[in-house]
């Protein structure tokens, strides 16, 4: 109670500082008046009595201060005065203040942004109840979590580790509310999905496991909150409304809460639909296909007391049983539990590695900034050594002087931190609404939360104390007598000081950043120009999902043919091809396992190769720009009635037939035993991503395989915008209700290049920051060394020294440190870029341009940083200098 009172008093004292001051002043004045009354009574005049009373009383200021201290306002009062003093000092040197605040704002801002991303993507658990025990099941070999629907059901019922197991797949569909169909993204989910996750509806109700009664039995959808907001304008009346999904009627059951976006962190689906109705969305049913690993992911909460390892063993034994029970349809691969939010380690591992690396780099930048400001600060403290000495001589304690220094440092860092936080919050807000790929509902969920603000505050305080502590030793060493007696201090001489090491360290850090960002940018430009096995330039991708417009069966190829024919008539179009999925545009390509002709037991383990499968029209190879090395392309005659044929790539030929020569004309077996004749061989390419190893690929005629989900490749020459408009016009003529999405192939590659782009941009930003830090560091050091040696320089000039000699004397040391730091940083940078090769395709430090670029960048930086001090050194007027002393 007492403690609380005392605390309250202190806090009140802190806040009512001025009020207390006024009261105290009044009390002391009243005292003096009373004393003067007494003196007046003894015969003095009023004026004289007052004067005498004041003298008797002594220093009002001192008494006031002592009273403050006694009243508990001690800490606050001193702090307040220190702050006032610090403000005055900072206002007196705006250059220093601006440099310091900007440096810290950049450094702390960078750290805040990176930490916010780390926090949002890695540290923060998924926004569902009991996220701790939520796990998904992944194959260790490729991190995939795919299952076929029958196997999912068995897995769900057989396992003894999960409370329940939910499943979902990501699909696209046309959602028609009466106007034009809208291309939307949905999650086809198991009926128990919301119950497994423990999500409660925002509006209406969710569907449950009990709603599933066989194929197409649950024509219900649940809208995501964002979609409800943007397409239904928060209309509570949507519950119960019937909408068309791919021309099938579905009833809107409810709306999901705003905080729920499914369980994939980056992906925001538009609505949720029971997967038993999958056939209505995709046209053909996969619910009984045990070999079709159609489900994207299964997940559930572990039962209490079950560890992920135990659950892993459980699902592995079930998977082993599947292989025994269904040898034709299932090959067991070792499974493990992982977190669903980043698709296990598939995205989780690179994201973790990248963000951790970024965090380390940002931390290094902050340290460099602190080192930098520490030396600037120490230089200022040295400039103020006379003042410090005077204060010490007048009886200030060293603690008091040091506290003053820290107040100044922390004040700067807090201002810098506030500016940095403000900037980073703006950046994060923008990032959170940024949609990197217009065709996917993907965004970066990095909104800052309390943790981020606290971390930013702690970083600011930490850096304040860190760089504030640099001049402490200097103050402790200060001897008032020496300094006041002898004027400015004698110079240090040639020995290497801690400050030099700081400057070298930050120059090296900067050089590391500059080198690695140049490597990243070079890698990126390389990968843009490398050979993909196709030519993405001047190709328009036209995505039409005919399902969405209700095309089924034979209507699909007929419509595809009509679309190709119509588009071919547009002037400037040189080739039109159809493919089920263009390479390097989505990570989810179809695959097929193939067998040698002589293989008779067609089980997965006996497969000769697993190939990426492209279902293509005759014009595809020409439209894609993939070179045919041997044999022929498909023709219109390769249709359902003709014998099955295929075009393969070199890798396929090597794997299945041993060599490329003579592969044409040979046959392989499909899974169903059908023999397929190879009619052509094309060059290898990149199919899923740029860093993949060469994969076997297989092209089959679209007329022999049939798919309604096609991308049309239109090779053209001319302006992409105009072509897009022309193509849209043609499609509209054919079917006004057909949803389409157009994009140039180069733009579509953005998805694949995204990680490298992010890496290059982030490194570039960090590099720019590192450069700014180095500039301020060298600038501070050079300016300090010039101002310390102004007198010496003046004398040298008076004695006839040349400009070059003056510069050498003034800045030689700064340049030597710059050279040393750059070389050290360059070597470290080249070592560090080994890490980069995991993210950026073809990132290599063994590249003359990298070396030259880094050297040029560092020299420019040095020139920029020493420009002003050099000018100052050259402008020294010996006469003025000598007169001053």
């Amino acid at each position, binding site marked *: 109670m007492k403690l609380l*009172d005392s605390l309250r008093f202190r806090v009140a004292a802190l806040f009512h500082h001025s009020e207390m001051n006024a009261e105290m002043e*009044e009390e002391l004045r*009243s*005292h003096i008046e*009373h004393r003067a009354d007494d003196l007046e009574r003894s015969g003095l005049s009023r004026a004289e009595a007052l004067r005498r009373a004041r003298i008797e009383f002594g220093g009002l200021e001192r*008494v006031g201060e002592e009273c403050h201290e*006694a*009243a508990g306002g001690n800490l606050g009062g001193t702090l307040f005065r220190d702050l006032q003093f610090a403000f005055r000092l900072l206002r007196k040197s705006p250059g220093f203040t601006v440099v310091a605040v900007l440096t810290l704002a950049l450094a702390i801002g960078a750290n805040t942004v990176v930490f916010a991303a780390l926090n949002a993507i890695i540290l923060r658990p998924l926004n569902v109840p009991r996220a701790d025990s939520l796990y998904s099941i992944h194959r260790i070999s490729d991190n995939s979590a795919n299952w076929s629907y029958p196997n999912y059901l068995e897995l769900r019922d057989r396992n003894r580790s999960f409370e329940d197991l939910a499943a979902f797949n990501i699909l696209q569909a046309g959602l028609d509310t009466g106007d034009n169909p809208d291309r939307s993204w949905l999650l086809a989910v198991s009926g128990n999905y919301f119950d497994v996750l423990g999500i409660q509806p925002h509006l209406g109700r969710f569907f449950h496991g009990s709603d599933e009664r066989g194929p197409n039995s649950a024509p219900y959808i649940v809208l995501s909150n964002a979609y409800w907001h943007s397409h239904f304008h928060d209309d509570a009346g949507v519950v119960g409304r019937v909408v068309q999904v791919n021309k099938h009627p579905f009833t809107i059951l409810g709306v999901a809460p705003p905080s729920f976006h499914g369980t994939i962190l980056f992906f925001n689906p538009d609505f949720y639909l029971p997967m038993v109705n999958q056939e209505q969305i995709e046209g053909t049913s996969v619910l009984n296909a045990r070999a079709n690993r159609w489900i994207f992911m299964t997940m559930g909460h572990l039962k209490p007391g079950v560890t992920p390892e135990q659950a892993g063993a459980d699902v592995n034994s079930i998977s082993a049983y599947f292989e025994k029970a269904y040898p034709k349809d299932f090959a067991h691969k070792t499974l493990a539990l992982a977190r669903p939010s980043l698709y296990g380690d598939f995205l989780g591992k690179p994201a973790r590695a990248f963000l951790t690396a970024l965090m380390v780099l940002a931390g290094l930048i902050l340290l460099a900034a602190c080192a930098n400001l520490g030396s600037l600060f120490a230089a200022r403290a040295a400039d103020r050594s006379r003042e410090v000495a005077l204060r010490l001589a007048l009886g200030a304690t060293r603690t008091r002087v040091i506290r003053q220094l820290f107040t100044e440092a922390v004040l700067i860092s807090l201002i810098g931190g506030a500016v940095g936080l403000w900037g980073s919050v703006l950046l994060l807000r923008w990032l959170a609404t940024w949609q990197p790929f217009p065709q996917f509902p993907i965004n970066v969920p990095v909104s800052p939360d309390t943790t981020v603000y606290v971390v930013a505050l702690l970083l600011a305080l930490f850096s304040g104390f860190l760089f504030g502590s640099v001049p402490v030793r200097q103050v402790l060493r200060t001897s008032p007598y020496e300094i006041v007696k002898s004027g400015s201090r004698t110079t240090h001489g040639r020995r290497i000081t801690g400050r030099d090491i700081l400057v070298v360290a930050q120059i090296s850090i900067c050089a590391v950043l500059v080198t690695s960002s140049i490597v990243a940018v070079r890698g990126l430009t390389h990968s843009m120009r490398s050979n993909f096995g196709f030519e993405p330039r001047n190709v328009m991708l036209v995505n039409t999902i005919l399902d969405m417009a209700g095309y089924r069966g034979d209507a699909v190829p007929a419509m595809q043919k009509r679309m190709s024919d119509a588009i071919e008539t547009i002037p400037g179009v040189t080739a039109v091809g159809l493919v089920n999925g263009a390479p390097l545009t989505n990570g989810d390509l179809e695959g097929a396992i193939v067998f040698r002709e002589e293989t008779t037991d067609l089980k997965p383990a006996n497969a000769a190769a697993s190939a990426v499968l492209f279902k293509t029209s005759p014009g595809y190879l020409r439209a894609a720009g993939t070179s045919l090395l041997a044999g022929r392309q498909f023709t219109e005659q390769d249709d359902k009635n003709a014998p099955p044929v295929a075009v393969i790539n070199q890798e396929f030929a090597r794997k299945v037939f041993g060599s490329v020569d003579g592969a044409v004309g040979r046959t392989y077996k499909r899974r169903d035993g059908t023999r397929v004749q190879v009619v052509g061989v094309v060059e290898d390419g990149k199919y899923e991503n740029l860093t993949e190893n060469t994969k076997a690929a297989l092209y089959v005629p679209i007329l022999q395989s049939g798919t309604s989900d096609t991308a049309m490749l239109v090779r053209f020459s001319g302006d992409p915008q105009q072509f897009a408009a022309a193509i849209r016009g043609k499609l509209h003529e054919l079917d006004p209700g057909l949803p389409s999405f157009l994009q140039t192939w180069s733009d579509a590659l953005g998805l694949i290049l995204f990680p490298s782009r992010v890496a290059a941009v982030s490194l570039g930003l960090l590099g720019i920051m590192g450069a700014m830090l180095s500039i301020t560091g060298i600038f501070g050091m050079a300016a300090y060394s010039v101002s310390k040696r102004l007198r010496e320089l003046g004398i040298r000039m008076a004695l006839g020294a040349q400009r070059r000699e003056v510069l050498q004397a003034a800045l030689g040391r700064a340049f030597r440190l710059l050279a040393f730091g750059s070389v050290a940083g360059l070597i470290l940078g080249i070592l560090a870029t080994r890490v980069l090769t995991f993210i950026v395709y073809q990132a290599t430090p063994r590249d003359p341009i990298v070396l030259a670029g880094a050297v040029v960048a560092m020299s420019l930086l040095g020139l920029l940083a020493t420009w002003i001090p050099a000018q100052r050194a050259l402008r020294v007027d010996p006469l003025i200098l000598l007169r001053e002393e």
Partner: protein
Amino acid sequence: MADQAQILPGTLDLLILRAVSLGPLHGYGILLRIGQMSGNALLIEQGALYPGLFRLVRQGLLKTNWGTSENNRKAKFYELTAAGRKRLREETANWNRLVTAIASALAIQPEEI
């Protein structure tokens, strides 16, 4: 001045509490009262009084009120709180014990040991 004793460290608080125990007083009044109580033998520097007063207020031993003084001037009056009264009793007892102990220590004769 020579006949005025410097007060012992730590006794200022006790003197203030005692002075105020006889009735509410303002700062200058406390000074006068202490002088009066000690027959002008104890000198308290005017400036030293106020930090002491503030300390006692902070400890909850004194409470303050603004009022009008006998000179018809606005002044801040101090008076004892219950805690202050209790403290005065304790401190007085302590002081008396101390004085007795020191006095007997000083008065002791070699043969008595």
